[in-house]
């Protein structure tokens, strides 16, 4: 299908799109956190009196929550403020509201707190310098433990021609959405109302209700335009604080983070250590052992999804006879782990690709051929026993290899070309509902997700609605509604919007067209078209203007209404292989293979990417322009994770580089030309066989750059990012 102009370009280019940071309500107060000055300690005293004495200032601390909310209903595990013990640096001790940002800052400074320091665990490798033993499950530092096995792993390792073992380390990366978290809360009668920049209005409502112990029905969450999400705006954060301040003051309250706070408090991907062991016999992978230690900061036990979900990306996309996988979510004195575009999958792909390329080199085999010959195919099952549906990764890999061959033939001396691949699962399983309203001149799609920039709502869903009704794109209006108005939707994450809401639109459109056909006295679905600005319907032998087919009540309501919902069945995993913990099923497999040409500075080790090509199985592409833009943006973000992005945590739990000058995302001049090609013919679970494309483009990038770097200069770097320093060390220049 063809590209269409972005429907949101007009407001965004005129400067009239209102983002979370732009919210401005007369009489609003400005909020700020009172942050914990150290990463771990027992609170001896928290004196809020001097701050409260300042004019116009309201301060709420842990003791104040009971004034507004029944403690029995509140989430007992999570609390808004540090209770007795501080567990990460900058953890909120209290929250203030004041007439201006300056006065809020002064109030924060006036709070006196005394904390007796406790030992700080900043580095997960200090918790388990060796692999966790059998008593590790009892450790307070373990938030989750997952373990699965299939086949006779030990026998395979004993009988192997060769066993290759390596350890990899990956860095903490931040989403760096340019808009920091921001919201404005107001209490309107008995409604707790908050406008916020979020990927999930319904998620914020659910989370806020649970944190505050108030019913979801009394909270209305209204999304603004979102200045980038990338996983960082997926659940509630500032909203509950802004709401309790609004409740306590009777005034609207604006809460927006400064960018340094955004870095320090943001929920990000944290460091990890991965141990890879591969047993090879007769040139085939016979068995793999994969062990993961994932830093989850102060994520609570039972609330860590990352380990059980992400670890599956270490198991594929390659065939093996038997395997054993074990992972621990390790708690440290950092903020809780949060999702970052394709959480931990780029890191996993980096480890898997680098390791298997290394295995092939050790066996004197061609790395690309070795990997290509083991790639999963449709109909096979994953190591956790899930059946793989239509999956174009092998086809993408072949296209990437052909490109790599051509580039190698013309590459300058000192340049290296590498191929890397990776996979993702589109999360179509979570709930998605929409309402369609077909009027005499247009079709309205009412839904509860704000467009966060990817185009999945305003381009993707509009394209689907147009195609399933036969109406031109300019007759389709996507209407966002807040949580009081819109049908339920779980939010923008997991590349799910197009698949889940797209299928819901499809279902509702079929119902609408059937109803219209019935009114024409026919069976089946009516065909819709537009003539002189009016929608016409045709079914059987009859054709009529839609306006003539609507009842007076439907005219009043704006048209004929139908609802659609989509909850995809997950292909389940084989529980007999699971020994401990929770693994999560993948619902729709999408794959990609990338090619990078790099050149490495022989004196500094600095890697420069010269050109880049991306081959993606995205099922059926529904909007070519939006799809290409997703891949270009995802590749650029991946190049940051590959080369420069690293949130550095000091031994005392401090984020050292909390700013855009020191945490380096790619700038315009650093991005090479990126060519994008879609591999069609592998239908996904979305409408017309579409697959989600928000996350897959970032997945293969660090792997591809690492393999190209090794090809260029021989440096086998086993840590992310591939900073000049790490490459130089691998080359023994340092």
């Amino acid at each position, binding site marked *: 299908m063809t*590209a269409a*102009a*972005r429907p*949101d*370009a*007009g*407001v*965004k*280019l*005129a*400067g*009239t*799109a*209102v*983002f979370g*940071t*732009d919210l*401005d309500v007369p009489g609003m107060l400005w909020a700020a956190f009172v942050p914990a000055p150290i990463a771990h300690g027992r609170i001896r005293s928290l004196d809020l009196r001097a701050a409260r004495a300042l004019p116009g200032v309201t301060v709420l601390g842990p003791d104040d929550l009971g004034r507004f909310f029944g403690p029995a209903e509140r989430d007992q595990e999570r609390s808004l403020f540090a209770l007795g013990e501080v567990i990460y640096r900058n953890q909120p001790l209290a929250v203030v509201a004041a007439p201006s940002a300056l006065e809020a800052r002064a109030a924060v400074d006036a709070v006196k707190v005394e904390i007796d320091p406790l030992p700080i665990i900043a580095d997960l490798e200090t918790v388990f310098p060796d692999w966790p033993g059998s008593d590790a499950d009892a450790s307070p530092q373990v938030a989750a433990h997952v373990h699965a096995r299939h086949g006779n792993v030990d026998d395979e390792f004993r009988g192997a021609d060769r066993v290759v073992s390596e350890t990899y380390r990956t860095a903490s990366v931040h989403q*760096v*959405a*340019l*808009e*920091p978290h921001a919201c404005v809360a107001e209490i309107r009668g008995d409604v707790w109302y908050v406008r916020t920049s979020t990927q999930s209005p319904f998620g914020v409502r659910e989370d806020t209700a649970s944190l505050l112990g108030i019913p979801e029905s009394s909270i209305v969450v209204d999304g603004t*335009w*979102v*200045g*980038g*999400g*990338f996983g960082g705006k997926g659940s509630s954060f500032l909203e509950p604080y802004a709401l309790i301040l609004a409740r306590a003051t009777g005034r609207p309250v604006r809460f927006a983070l*400064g*960018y340094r706070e955004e870095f320090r408090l943001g929920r990000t991907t944290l460091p990890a250590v991965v141990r890879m062991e591969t047993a090879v016999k007769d040139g085939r992978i016979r068995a793999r052992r994969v062990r993961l230690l994932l830093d989850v900061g102060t994520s609570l036990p039972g609330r860590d999804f990352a380990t059980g979900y992400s670890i599956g990306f270490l198991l594929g996309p390659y065939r093996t006879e038997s395997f054993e996988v074990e992972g621990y979510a390790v708690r440290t004195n950092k903020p809780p782990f949060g999702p970052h575009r394709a959480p931990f999958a780029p890191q996993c792909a980096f480890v898997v690709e680098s390791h298997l390329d290394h295995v092939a080199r050790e066996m004197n085999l061609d790395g690309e051929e070795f990997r290509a010959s083991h790639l999963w195919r449709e109909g096979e099952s994953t190591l956790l026993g899930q059946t793989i549906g239509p999956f174009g990764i092998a086809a993408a890999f072949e296209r990437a290899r052909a490109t790599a061959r051509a580039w190698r033939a013309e590459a300058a001396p000192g340049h290296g070309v590498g191929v890397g691949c990776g996979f993702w699962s589109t999360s179509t399983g979570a709930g998605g509902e929409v309402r369609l309203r077909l009027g005499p001149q247009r079709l309205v799609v009412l839904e509860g997700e704000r467009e*966060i*920039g*990817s*185009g999945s709502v305003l381009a993707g869903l509009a394209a689907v609605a147009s195609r399933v009704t036969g109406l031109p794109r300019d007759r389709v209006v996507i209407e966002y509604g807040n949580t009081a108005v819109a049908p339920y939707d779980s939010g923008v994450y997991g590349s799910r919007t197009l698949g889940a809401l797209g299928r819901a639109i499809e279902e509702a459109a079929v119902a609408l067209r059937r109803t219209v056909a019935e009114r024409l006295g026919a069976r089946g679905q009516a065909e819709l078209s537009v003539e002189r600005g009016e929608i016409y319907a045709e079914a059987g032998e009859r054709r009529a203007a839609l306006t003539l087919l609507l009842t007076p009540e439907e005219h009043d309501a704006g048209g004929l209404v139908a609802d659609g919902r989509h909850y995809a069945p997950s292909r389940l995993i084989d529980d007999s292989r699971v020994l401990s913990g929770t693994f999560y099923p993948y619902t729709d497999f999408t794959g990609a293979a990338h090619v990078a040409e790099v050149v490495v500075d022989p004196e500094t080790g600095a890697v420069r990417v010269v050109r880049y090509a991306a081959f993606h199985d995205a099922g059926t592409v529904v909007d070519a*322009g939006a799809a290409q*833009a997703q891949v*270009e*943006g*995802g*590749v*650029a*973000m991946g190049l940051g994770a590959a080369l420069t992005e690293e949130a550095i945590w000091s031994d005392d739990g401090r984020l050292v580089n909390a*700013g*855009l*000058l020191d945490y380096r*995302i*790619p*700038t*315009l*001049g650093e*991005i090479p030309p*990126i060519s994008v090609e879609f591999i069609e013919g592998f239908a996904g679970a979305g409408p017309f066989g579409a697959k989600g494309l928000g996350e897959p483009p970032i997945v293969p990038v660090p792997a591809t750059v690492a393999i190209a770097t090794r090809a260029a200069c021989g440096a086998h770097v086993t840590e992310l990012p591939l900073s000049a320093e790490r490459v130089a060390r691998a080359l023994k220049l340092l």
Partner: protein
Amino acid sequence: MTPRPLRLNVNGTAEEIPDVPGPERLLDTLRWRLKLKGTKEGCRTGDCGACTVLVDGRSCLSCLTLAHEVDGSTVTTIEVGAEEVLVARVRAAFDTAGALQCGYCTPGFVMAVAGLLGERGTAAPREELLEGLGGNLCRCTGYAAIVRAVDLLRTEVP
């Protein structure tokens, strides 16, 4: 540091703003006093470029500029109308090239491109123009479509 009045010509309108404190940033004057929220607040430390505006035709990081430093100047922001021909052309090129996604960096980028083209002209070497945009960060597009927008502007008749 006593608050004192400030005179600016903003998007063609003469503004007299009473009682602007000495340390106030131009960014905050535009956003919170003049309610021109199109200029975005990102890092407030001059690293992201989201707050870029034109001051007397030259691009300027409004987060690192004290409002009183530019007293008496002409300020152009993303809200300016089509009468500002260069900005209108940049907007059109961004639209045609699809050079935006979330849109948060967009106002700063549009003003930075307009400032650069105003200063150097569309005939300036491509590399020079692209280097001039190194201070504006975008997390969504990978800059590819933004570069296509700049290329469109370069091929237009000046």
